[in-house]
């Protein structure tokens, strides 16, 4: 694929958006460590992807997905994260993409696996700085515009709307009954995290459904699980737990049954004999 074609593809456009956002976020916060973290995350993501790909003797060795995973991880982890933790987190994410897989596609969102496991393993923190968590309020409008653009390109509006609708409705009820820290959920940096997650992380094509009804259920599961975890435990891992629940639903209810149907399908001898 040529550079021009790649830039027009959803992967190329998402990569460009994430990279531009990181540069804007660094400019707004004057926290130059963000550039170092992004460089480390992308470099280790690409190296790990190529290494595992060559061990598994993959024919396609273009690490474009790994670049996106690295940029997403860099956007979410704190800019003060040490480079060794950033590298380890990224390697875990890419390893999960290859190792927890079904028919060469990851079961769980790789970035989410890396971010979640990095909390107990490395005591890593998340800041969502690349989602403009520490930037001026107008950047939220930019995040929404970019999110609509990408969601449209990958045709994931049903899941995005069902996620935001469910999550916001539960947070509204929580706020009305003064449960948890519902007030924070509507404001930066938590609303930035929700938008970034719903538009750029949840919409990962290999780990999310294609059909509209499956997308709606997937969004409802993630929104509900995320909001419930937030109300009970608070913290910052609620989206990650929600994402794993959604991935599990998609795998068990859609991908695995489809795979079983395909393997059970009788061979069409008539068609074969005509060849």
């Amino acid at each position, binding site marked *: 694929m040529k550079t021009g074609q790649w830039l027009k593809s959803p992967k190329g456009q998402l990569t460009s958006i994430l990279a531009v956002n990181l540069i804007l976020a660094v400019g707004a916060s004057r926290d130059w460590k963000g550039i170092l973290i992004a460089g480390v995350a992308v470099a280790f993501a690409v190296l790990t992807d190529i290494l595992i790909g060559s061990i598994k003797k993959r024919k396609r060795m273009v690490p474009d997905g790994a670049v996106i995973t690295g940029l997403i991880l860099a956007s979410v982890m704190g800019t003060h994260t040490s480079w060794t933790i950033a590298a380890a987190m990224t390697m875990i994410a890419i390893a999960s993409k290859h190792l927890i897989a079904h028919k060469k596609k990851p079961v769980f969102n790789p970035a989410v696996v890396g971010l979640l496991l990095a909390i107990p393993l490395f005591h890593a*923190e998340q800041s969502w700085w690349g989602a403009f968590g520490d930037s001026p309020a107008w950047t939220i409008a930019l995040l929404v515009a970019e999110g609509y653009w990408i969601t449209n390109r990958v045709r994931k509006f049903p899941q995005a709307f069902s996620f935001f*609708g469910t999550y916001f409705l539960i947070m509204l009820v929580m706020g009305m009954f003064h449960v948890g820290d519902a007030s924070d959920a*509507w404001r930066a940096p938590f609303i930035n995290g929700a938008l970034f997650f719903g538009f750029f992380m949840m919409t990962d094509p290999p780990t999310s459904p294609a059909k509209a009804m499956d*997308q709606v259920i997937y969004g409802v599961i993630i929104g509900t699980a995320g909001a419930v975890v937030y109300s009970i435990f608070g913290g910052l891992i609620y989206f990650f737990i929600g994402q794993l629940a959604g991935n599990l639903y998609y795998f068990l209810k859609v991908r695995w049954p489809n795979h079983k149907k395909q393997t059970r399908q009788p061979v069409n001898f008539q068609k074969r004999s005509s060849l």
Partner: protein
Amino acid sequence: MANMSKKWIVLCTAAIATVYAAGYWDTESQATIPNAAADDQVLQAASSEPSINNTYKDGIYSGTGMNRRGSIQVTITIEQDRIMDVEISDFAMHYSESDIVGLPDEVTQSQSATVDNVSGATYSTAAFEDAVQDALAQAAIH
């Protein structure tokens, strides 16, 4: 693949924006950042006049530090111009309190609000430092 018509995209966007606006408006009073100066107080101050060379007045003081990730309130005890005790009286950060459990001791040992950044707890460390600084400002002899 799931395509959505523009009409449905507009309708869903409007519905979600309405819920967002309702949630934001409903929690406006809960989210208002408390006035640190109003919340912070001199819990107990010594009645005797401090020495002219002292930096702080004896007593127990409360201070608050906050950022976009939450707030921390501390209570510090000053005796004979020294920080004798620091306690985290309220922890409302979106991170674990255990991350910064060693910081109060660091303040009493160094006799300063400045502490080493805790890896994985940058925002909690910053809020803690601000809270101690706020309490010390109240204890300071002007």
